[in-house]
């Protein structure tokens, strides 16, 4: 968190710095199946965030003692490229923040991936942040969900994540870096759109009960757009498959 004393004005004439409305997402672009050597992959551009997600598996769990004979295990690695941001924030390697994000991402996916279908195996998720501009954990989860579907892993749902927060008493969706650093509170959420289950909720700062309700409503509303883009990205890859599935079993 940056120093609150030199907080810049985040709302000018009731508008955000980048001119967005309070409930407006940054431009989002998703592409699936971008990496040849991974079983599943996705590339995502969300505002100035650029994120690459790759999935391997299910493969034999290594080392053997971590394998669970009844279900699959998920391993997740979130990492920021050394050139992804400025200063200490983009220090690459397994730092406290990267380990925390890896853990919450893993736990979000453990709720939707059908782990019992692949006993004794391991599913690897790699999230690589190439350029960061706030809300990378949410963007990482959104990209990893597409990569998991692209890898053909059994899942209950295609999840998405987005952040909401509070600036000067207004509830605002999808923070960018500067809003993230100086806002009053910030809440990334991961949601399963099928039944709106909350899979990740982290909160910096405070919300009243009504504010939280409003923020969740905004997240779920924005989720419809994100889910559609995720599905479009996957459909794009297999659009040709629909034309031809005649020969072969």
């Amino acid at each position, binding site marked *: 968190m940056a120093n609150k004393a030199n907080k810049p004005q985040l709302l000018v004439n009731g508008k955000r710095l980048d001119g967005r409305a309070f409930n407006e997402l940054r431009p989002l672009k998703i592409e699936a199946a971008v990496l040849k050597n991974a*079983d*599943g992959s996705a590339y995502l551009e969300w505002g100035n965030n650029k994120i690459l997600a790759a999935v391997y*598996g*299910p*493969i*034999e*769990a290594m080392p053997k003692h971590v394998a669970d*004979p009844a279900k*699959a295990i998920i391993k997740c690695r979130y990492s920021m490229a050394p050139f992804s941001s400025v200063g200490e924030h983009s220090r690459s390697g397994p730092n406290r923040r990267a380990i925390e994000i890896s853990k919450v991402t893993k736990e979000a996916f453990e709720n*939707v991936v*059908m782990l019992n*279908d*692949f*006993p*004794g*195996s*391991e599913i690897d998720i790699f999230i690589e942040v190439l350029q960061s501009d706030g809300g990378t954990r949410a963007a990482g989860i959104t990209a990893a969900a597409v990569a998991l*579907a*692209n*890898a*053909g*892993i*059994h*899942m*209950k*749902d*295609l999840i998405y994540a987005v952040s909401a927060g509070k600036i000067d008493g207004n509830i605002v969706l999808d923070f960018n870096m500067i809003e993230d650093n100086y806002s009053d509170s910030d809440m990334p959420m991961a949601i*399963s*759109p*099928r039944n709106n289950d909350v899979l990740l909720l982290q909160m910096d700062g405070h919300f009243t009960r009504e504010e939280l309700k409003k923020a969740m409503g905004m997240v779920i509303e924005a989720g419809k757009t994100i889910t559609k883009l*995720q*599905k479009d990205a*996957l*459909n794009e890859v*297999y*659009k*040709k*498959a*629909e*034309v*031809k*599935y*005649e*020969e*072969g*079993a």
Partner: protein
Amino acid sequence: MRDILIPGDMVASEPLRMENTYVENGKTFAKVLGMYEREKKTLVPLEGVWIPKIGDIVVGIITGTKNTVYEVDLNFFGRSILIGSKYERQSYKNGDVVEAIVKDVEDRKTVILSGPKILYGGTVLNIKPIKVPRVIGKNNTMIGQIADLTGCNMIVGKNGTVWLKGEGVGVATEAIRQIEAEAHISGLTERIKRMLEEKCGPRRPRTQETEGAEEKFE
């Protein structure tokens, strides 16, 4: 009518018994990215790993031996073992390529093989297991065509391991790679046929062996 379904898409508003789906609150949802055929009521996955089923023909490599129990590498997430008979003269050593049938699957991850047959010589190729039906083709058309035109013996395991032997191995490998890459594009059999004829000339007479290799998949 075919649709691409994405995990979480509703297949039907009543509970159905269908592969690659799950039922929740009396409704059926897709659990894998796949092609849904309304008439046949099937969801065919577009990506994924091999999930062993009893009766699958597989090709594997022996990686460990312990008396008459052999460990076989089938290139999937579980492990597979081959239990040899005490009375059997045949023994296997590390590195042998075997063709076998899945006799049993324990805990959905341990595969018990039976009916092994050593495949001498040749080369082994790994492909995406999901593309195996396309490499075999409807009524073995594709595999028969490759075997005919290249004069190469081939056995395609359900686990995605292909064994090839014969003079036309190079061309056959190329054909298989092309099938893998273009599996979803229309007119595949024709294109592969044209490509093979260009490289190997016209149809060759069938040998006894190629016919045998083909019949296994009927």
